[in-house]
Structures are given as structure tokens and as C-alpha cells.
């Protein structure tokens, strides 16, 4: 975990400044300082299945303010990766995983983000999982406004050297999924 996050968890003295400054810690099941604590205690399981690792908005406030210079945000990145690899991700937060996976899939195919394709794919997958109509329809009203403001590329952009993109993904996935 430490090598994945490039930080030293033993340095953390549990002052809680990360939790204090986190914009979403109020809603978290396990706040950032406790995530680090579980790792310090060798009880990673409790951290890996926490919802909070998927509530994190990666704003980097915890890392910026840590008096002990522990890279808390990178530690959460590491937790997310290991959580997925071990298949222990909290079911309550699978929406976030779905979105991020769909995002990377999209990049792997196009090289650049195709927003329309991403939204369609994500909404479809999310709906198939939770059958939540209101979430499916959320933001639907925005689409016409985006179109009138010429903010949508309906066809999206694709890079020329797409083989390279697929190769990059293949080379990186070998390392990350083990």
C-alpha cells in the first residue's frame, strides 16, 4: 500500500487534520484519518471496503495540509486500486466505480473522452444495476441546453494512433491488476 501511494504511513500521528479539512468527511462512514489508522494497524480490510474511499473527491486538501507530509490523497487512490483488485468494494459506491471504469474504457477506445458516449454508457450500466429511474433521467433536461449552446460534440473526437492507446492500456493493466 505504501509503495503504491509513495508515502510513509507510519509518519501519521493521527492528528485528524485531514478529516477536519475534508469537504466530504461529514458524510463518510470511515473518515480519512481512520482509513490511515486501519492501514497502520494492519487491518486494511476495514479500509478497503469502506464507502468513504469512493466518496473522496480527490481535492488534495488532506495532502496539502498534512503536518507530517503524509500523502493521504494518494493513499486513498491506492486503497481504491487494491479494493477493486481484491473485489471488496462497498456495493453502496459501485456507481462511482462504474463511472470511472466507463471513463477509462472510453479513453481506451477513443484516446480522448467522448462525453455523449460516456454518459450514455454510464447511465445504461448504472440503470441496469440499480433500476433507479430518477437517476437515469437526472440531468436529461440539460441535454437540449448543452446542444443549443454548442457544448456537445455529438460524434466526439478520436485520436489517430489508437493502437498506441490500446498498447499503453495493455502495458499498464498488466502492472496494476496483480
Amino acid at each position, binding site marked *: 500500500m505504501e509503495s503504491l501511494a509513495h508515502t510513509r504511513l507510519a509518519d501519521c*500521528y*493521527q*492528528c485528524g487534520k485531514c*478529516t*477536519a479539512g475534508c469537504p466530504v468527511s461529514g458524510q463518510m462512514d470511515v*473518515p480519512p484519518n481512520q482509513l490511515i489508522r486501519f492501514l497502520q494497524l494492519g487491518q486494511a480490510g476495514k479500509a478497503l471496503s469502506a464507502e468513504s474511499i469512493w466518496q473522496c473527491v480527490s481535492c488534495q486538501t488532506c495532502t496539502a*495540509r498534512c*503536518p507530517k507530509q503524509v500523502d493521504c490523497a494518494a493513499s486513498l487512490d491506492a486503497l481504491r486500486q487494491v479494493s477493486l483488485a481484491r473485489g471488496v468494494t462497498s456495493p453502496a459506491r459501485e456507481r462511482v466505480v462504474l463511472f470511472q471504469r466507463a471513463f477509462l474504457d472510453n479513453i481506451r477506445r477513443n484516446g480522448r473522452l467522448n462525453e455523449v458516449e460516456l454518459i450514455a454508457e454510464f447511465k445504461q450500466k448504472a440503470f441496469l444495476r440499480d433500476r433507479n429511474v430518477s437517476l437515469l433521467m437526472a440531468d436529461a433536461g440539460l441535454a437540449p441546453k448543452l446542444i443549443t449552446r454548442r457544448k456537445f460534440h455529438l460524434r466526439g473526437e478520436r485520436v489517430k494512433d489508437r493502437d498506441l492507446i490500446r498498447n499503453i492500456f495493455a502495458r499498464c493493466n498488466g502492472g496494476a491488476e496483480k
Partner: protein
Amino acid sequence: MSRIGVFICWCGENIARTVDCAKVAEEAAKIPGVRCAVDYKYMCSDPGQALVRDKIAAERLDAVVVASCSPHMHLRTFRKAAARAGVNPYRVEMANIREHCSWVHQDRGEATAKAIDLVRMMVAKVRHNKPLDAIRVPVTRRALVIGGGVAGIQAALDIADAGYEVVMVEREPSIGGKMAGLSETFPTLDCSQCILTPRMVDVGQHPRIKLYSYSEVEALDGFVGNFTVKIRQKARYVDISKCTGCGECWNVCPLKKNPSEFDYGMGFRRAIYVPFPQAVPARPVIDKNVCAKLIRNGCGLCEKKCQAGAINFKDEDRIVEEKIGAVVVATGYKLYDIGKNGNGKVHGYGEYGYGRYKDVIDSLQFERLVSASGPTNGVLKRPSDGAVPKHVVFISCVGSRDNAKGLPYCSKICCMYTAKHTMLYKHKVHEGQAHVFYMDIRAGGKGYEEFVRRAIEQDGAKYYRGRVSKITEENGKLIVRGADTLAGFPVTIEADMVVLAAAMMPADGVEELAQKLNVGYDQYGFLLESHPKLRPVETNAAGIFLCGACQGPKDIPESVAQASAAAGKVAITFAATELTREPEIARINEQTCAACFTCVRTCPYHAIDRAEIRNRRGELVKRTARVNPGLCMGCGTCLAVCPSKSADLDGFTEQQIYSMIESLA
């Protein structure tokens, strides 16, 4: 031919386990010049020392090698023992066969062979040891105390009461230091000024204490027992020998709105002022940066009003010299600069809004707010609008224990004074609520833990275990976003005032002073003691002692105890009519010295002077470098740099070193 005795110690099992001591003795006895070689279980014990003395007498030895532990440990022991039996103590050497041999090797055969070599080398060395006599230097029994806070005051009074003269130098217009501005003190809540100001008066009136206020140490020359200090008396523009302290001058000064240093900017003073009513000396000083007369030759009302004719606008800095024999450094501390950002060693706390929000203050400012002599006469009003704060947040470890801000150490006293602050606050604002964010409570000390518990249990302070991440101001409230790591959630408090327990740092300018005194300091500027346990008030410079927060964060009781300890060390120094020093010092062959003075420039102790050799008619024969035996610490740097090989070190001559090497061939 020398008559050398070799004594091999087993150090119980410590040496004997790995080294065959009998074998070492057997081999040592074969070395030319060795009259006898014996081994024994504990050479440093009484019977062991008796063995050394008996052998000296029986074999008429004139030099001794003890093969045992490090000379740091017992060289003095064996030199004394040998001296009692009539051998010059500087003809005693030690071969370190413990730290350098038995403790670091496993193979008995090899360790024994190495021990024999170590003994052989020391025998070769001691053969050329010249008998030396300890250096004697006279003592000026007069001490310099730098800094007039509680530590300096205690040290000065103790030294003076022991019967010696004291010169005290204080850079502020009055002595008293930080303690003079404190409200009440933990853990007894006695009034700080009530206990300190009588001591300040004692200093001012003591027949053996000469006080230089508004003065700084410019330079220190000489060596233990024989220092000369140059003191810069800063222009005060008031002749304190004429001034009666009547107060007419500052009452007429029209420049009223200058932030008071004593009140940490929360109150005001005039351009001519005494920093606080109980100041010692109770004499004013003119602030040359604001006085209209000094800036543009205006005003001058104070001069017209002064009947004693004490105002002197033409005053200038003066340098005076004093002869002294010992120095006590008591320069104290300052608070971490919370508002600062970027650059330098500390980074400040932009996230806490200190300096932007008036009601975010530091702990010393809070002391003034609750002090009867403070800017609000002891009524607790917040700085922005004078309202009585109903919720006050206290934050510990601001700057302390924070690697990202530059200071990893604990400031030690903040837990205690923060508990005190919550009590003082509650005693003044009964309906108020104190909130404390802390990481750990460090209350080691007599009555300390009980004091903190009292703040929580009786005075109802709410303690949250966590740091604060950010403070913002909304509609006159300070929004404090912290965490309670015990409960495991973030905590937000709408406060009326926030008090930051800022870290303790060494006072400004301490590094420059340390360089003038040739005293070491750590990466934060705290002055270095000679040994953290056994020589806590000594420095590595003989005759210079430390006390108070200049050495590390400390509370009042510790500073006072350390001050008395430093005074005791001064008294010990002054108890002798002359001082003795180790004679193993450098010597310059003045005939061969090429007068390049490389040694003068490189000597870390400034112990080598440029000298001239003149004939009887007073004509210059040649120039040479000359070692000051009072200052030389025998480090040998001059030997290494001397291009003409004119420097040598008594007890460690080049001849000795070469013969040690040759003995191995």
C-alpha cells in the same frame, strides 16, 4: 629506557569474553621498555587501582598503559591513581580494547591479536609522552548574564548573592522578559507580576549587579576566567542617571498611537515610554523611528517638560567594555511567526487567518488580554469589536510538532498554559465556553496533570482530540473546522475568538550571539548544552553556561531551576583562585613559523594570535603565530594546516603518532 607498566582489564566479561587477556599481558611483557604486564578483572575498582599503584612503586615505573575501556570513561581515573603513586599523569595512556575491540568483534583469536596491537601502539606512544603540568590561569570573579528574563534574573541574583559581581545585559528597555507580561502562572495560578517584579527590583538595587538595559553584546574575547565583553548601549535619548522616572515626559508626548511591544500590538504607547509600569529601570526610552523630534526636528515637548534635563536628542550608541570571568546565556524565546508564509525555516499558517482576522490571536496576546495590567485592564474583550467572547477556541501545537511548517519538536509548555487559559477565561466569563483542540496532553510535572483535569472537570473546558484544518470568518463569527479523532468525525465550532498556542522558538538573533560566543546551536537555533544529561547547563566553550528557553522549550520552574544550576556552575568556577586546564594543547615553533597565519584563520577556537618577536632594542625580528594556552582546546587543526610543520600538539606529537604506526610494522 622507559619503565612502562601495562595493565590489562577484563572489564568483567565485557573484554575477557572475546579477548584473551592473559595472552595480551604475556605479549605486552615482551615489548621493549615494558617492565611488567598484568591482567585483572576490574582495573577501575579500588583493588585494581591499588594494583596499579603497587606495581608503580615495586617496579619503579615511569609510564603506564591501561588497556581497557574508552579514555572518555576512565582516563582521568587512572591518571589520578598514577599521580598518587608519583607518575606524571600525562605519562598515562589508555588502549581501548573494549569499544574498539571486544565489543565489535566475535573471533577470539583475531580480537586478541588486535588487542595486542592496540597495546603495542600505546606503549610506543607513551614512551614519548613528556611529563606535563596542568595549565593555570587567573580568574576574574565577575559574571556576565545575557538576558534579563526570569532565567537571567534568577542566575544574576544567585551569583550576586554568592558574593560575586554580575554584569547583566538586556536588549529591551526593561528587564522582566516574557514573564513580566504573563497574567497568572500554572499550576498554582499565582500572579506572574506579583512574583516577578520584586525580583526585578532586587536586580535593579543589588549592590553587586550592574545592569545594562537597552544594550546588546557586541563581542566577547578571551577565555574562561578572562573574558572581555564589548557591550553596545543603544541610544536611549534619555540620560538615566539624571532621569527621576517622574513621567512628565511621556504624559506630554502627543504621539499616542504606537503599538505597544509589551502588549504585543494590542495596546498603545507614546513615542517616549516605559514599556510597563513596573519596568526596571523605571526610566523611559525614545522610539527613534516615530519621535517627531528625531525624525524631523519637530515637537520636543518632552525635553521642555523634563525638569531634570535628562532628555538628550543627540544621544548615540556607545560601546563599553567589561572584564568578566564567566558567562550565563539566558536569551529566552519568541513565539512562532504564525502569519508568515513562504520563505525561511517556518511557513506560517495561512489556513488559520492569523493577521487577517483580528480575533485570531496568539497565546502571549491572550495573556495580555486577561492580565490586570493589560490593554483591557483585565476585562476579557475581543480585539475586533470589544465584545465579550462567548465561545473561545484554543488550538495547541501551532507550529510545534508540525514538520510541514518547519518545527517537528514539542514546545512542552503549551498544554499547560492552554489549560490555564481556559480556566482564566471561565473565571472571567462565567457563561462562556472554552473549546480546546489538542493532539496529546503533555502534563508531566508536579501538579500538572491535576491542573489540566481541573480545567476539564471543574471549569468545563471541552477538549477535542484533533487538529484544526481551517478558520474562516462569517458574519462576525470565526468558523473553526476541526476534527475529533476520538469520535471519528469532523467538528465545526462557531467561535468569537481563537487563541493559537504558537510554538516556542529561540529569540531573534540568538545564532549571531552564539557565533560571537563560540557556542554551538541546533538546527532550530537552540543553544547546545555540553551533555544532555550530565552537563546540561555547560556549553562546549569553557566558562559559558546556559539557562532557560534559549536551550530548549521550558516553563518557568524549569527555567529558574536551570538558572540556579548555571549560577552554581559560575560559583564553582569562581571558587578557585586560579583555573587549571588540560595541558595537551598546541605549540608553535616560533623559530620555524613562516607567519602565514593559516592556523590563525582556521583555529575553531580563535586560540592562535599573530605575535611579533622583537630584540632587546625593540626591533622586529620576525612575526609568528602564538597559541593562547587559555583558549586552545587541543583539537590539532593547526597541525593539519601548517605548511611549515611548525605546529605540534603536546601529548600527541607527530613523533608519537609515527612511532605508533611504526610499532605495527
